[in-house]
């Protein structure tokens, strides 16, 4: 493709990407922004940025997919433009819309005079167009893409291939440089192979107890180290049970916070037991956990 933006050299030289010399740099810089990435995630981010490809992060809810995008936005000094997907999301909600009410008013005001209704004054930018117009200061987060319809996924394919949008009344809008795009999926359905093929992929698993304790300590603020370690161990145990909704990292952080708040009125491990509703939010799961909770807390609070 002569002069095309798909060439790696163009991508790297054309945009001020975060300066990562090696995979380890990614992990270090993310940690500086309170995000602890394992080697796999750091490699995937490094490759996505260097090759100018979208990054697809899959994983259970609450493992930190969206947080990874936010941390990367902070490193790159770009604002995160989030497109939250849902069933029925349509191209106008992702691309652009015309401000019809304003257009109608202008039409009435103009009277007999000619008025151009299709200028940028009347254009409402939606996330994809917003990032396309200013890729150097914005990072696109397409969140929970698995919730969108397969048709929307097909539409995204086109956008992610060329990074251009055709607005019939205005013309084709093309990104000056490839924007950073991060997609997340909870894997409630299989994404199409064609979409996966265009992305750098990483499955974010739950962190091990040590890493999770570190995350809790950084994120929960007033939680002490022993509490964070106990919560991390207990949450690991809970994830080993056959639960419909295994607790994510955010639940673990909330559990640590809640238990810390309750410590004055209840001692350990009663504070954990009382706050279990913060971490398990399903009736059947609570019933599954109940017989194991005491032994689990006993083991965790050593």
């Amino acid at each position, binding site marked *: 493709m002569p002069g095309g933006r798909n060439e790696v050299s163009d991508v790297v030289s054309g945009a001020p990407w975060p300066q990562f010399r090696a995979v380890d740099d990614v992990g270090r810089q993310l940690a500086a922004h309170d995000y602890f990435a394992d080697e796999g995630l750091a490699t995937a981010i490094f490759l996505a940025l260097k*090759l100018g490809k979208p990054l697809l992060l899959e994983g259970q809810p609450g493992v930190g997919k969206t947080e990874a995008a936010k941390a990367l936005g902070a490193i790159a000094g770009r604002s995160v433009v989030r497109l939250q997907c849902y069933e029925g999301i*349509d191209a106008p909600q992702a691309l652009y819309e015309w401000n*019809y009410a304003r257009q109608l008013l202008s*039409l009435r005001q103009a009277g007999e005079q000619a008025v151009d209704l299709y200028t940028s004054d009347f254009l409402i930018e939606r996330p994809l167009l917003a990032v396309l117009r200013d890729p150097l200061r914005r990072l696109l987060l397409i969140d929970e893409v698995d919730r969108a319809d397969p048709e929307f996924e097909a539409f995204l394919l086109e956008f992610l291939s060329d990074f251009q949008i055709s607005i019939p009344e205005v013309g084709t809008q093309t990104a000056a440089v490839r924007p950073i795009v991060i997609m997340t999926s909870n894997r409630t359905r299989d994404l199409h192979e064609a979409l996966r093929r265009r992305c750098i992929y990483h499955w974010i698993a739950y962190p091990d107890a040590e890493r999770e304790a570190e995350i809790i300590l950084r994120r929960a603020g007033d939680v002490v180290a022993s509490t964070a370690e106990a919560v991390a161990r207990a949450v690991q145990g809970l994830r080993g049970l056959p639960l419909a909704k295994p607790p994510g990292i955010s639940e673990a952080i909330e559990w640590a916070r809640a238990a810390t708040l309750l410590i004055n009125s209840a001692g350990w491990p009663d504070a954990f037991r009382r706050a279990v509703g913060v971490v398990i939010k399903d009736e059947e799961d609570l019933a599954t956990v109940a017989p194991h909770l005491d032994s689990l807390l006993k083991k965790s609070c050593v």
Partner: protein
Amino acid sequence: MSVAVPRAVAPLVTFAAVLRRHGFSASSDQMVTFLAGVRLVGPANFESIRLTAYASFAPDYDRHNEFEALFRAHFCAEPMPRTSLPEPGGRSQPGDNLTSPVAAGADRQARRSGKSAADRELLHARRFDVQGTGTLHRQLLELRSHFPQRRCFRVRPARHGKSIHLARSLARAVRTGGDLARPVFRERCLRPRKILLMIDISGSMKGLTPAYLRFAHTIAHAADRVETFTIGTRLTRISAALSRRAEEAAVAAVGNVVLDWEGGTRLGPALGTFFKVPRYFNYARGAAVLILSDALERGDAAELVQAVHRLSRVAWRLSWASPLVAAAHFAPRTAALKRILPFLDDLIDGSSVAALTNFVLRMDEPAPCASQVWTSRLEL
């Protein structure tokens, strides 16, 4: 014209071919990404190559272990475990064939009570000789508009819509100099509901299994979003196998994917497993669920009742098709069926494909409560 691949790069290039041979997607784009990635990360060691391979080829999470085994076999010359391989070229996913974690415990309990016929899963493949006439397929395609639908967020112009379609109204206003005498109205579009089929493949359903698979294949190709599972001693997702257009090929693929043909019936644990996989659980949300089973559950039915209750809470409509319903003096008298009846919208005849087809084409009509229907029938 063939291009000579440098010796150092050859193992990387041939890895894509290995992946393809084992049914993974490995396009030339991904191959280029993989090579560029390896160049970027070093490669310092095998771990960095492995992580780059994961990031570039994006294997399905269910097949991560298989991908790992292939990587080790290719780059580290470790032996490839035969059991982890699917049919070459197929899309069968080992992760889609799930044994219930509670099955073993339930089995021990059943054995003690003497209600269970066997304490081990007898796993084997099955070949099907299915000859479809195509009539059923044609009938369903013609009547696909009868499949249940729901309103979605998208809108379209509608004469009797309740809100104004601003884009169309503006276009009309431009033609009339800014006057909006007759605004265009809009309404929300309809789209097909998800359909979830669960087929009991235990020994007692042996005779009907081929017909059910043919029915599932037809539905999968006639409706838009269909997920199909088999339930026996374990839960197996067969949607990928049924996605093959040719009926014979699809049913043969199912024969390879499913391992618990004609085994015992552990509907409760199998449905329990269904809920423990979040992805599967989401298939049921708002879906029209049709379970094809005689509900002859071994052992305690408590687990089955709990699972059906849960399914009824997330599904839009929960229907149970049993071949026993066709019998002249049938009544839901077994402990399991009596207890799940209050949670069902329909308990229907599942003895033939014709009966099932007729039901599916009436699914968009309001659902009566199965227990009310059968209570009134028994009173009569």
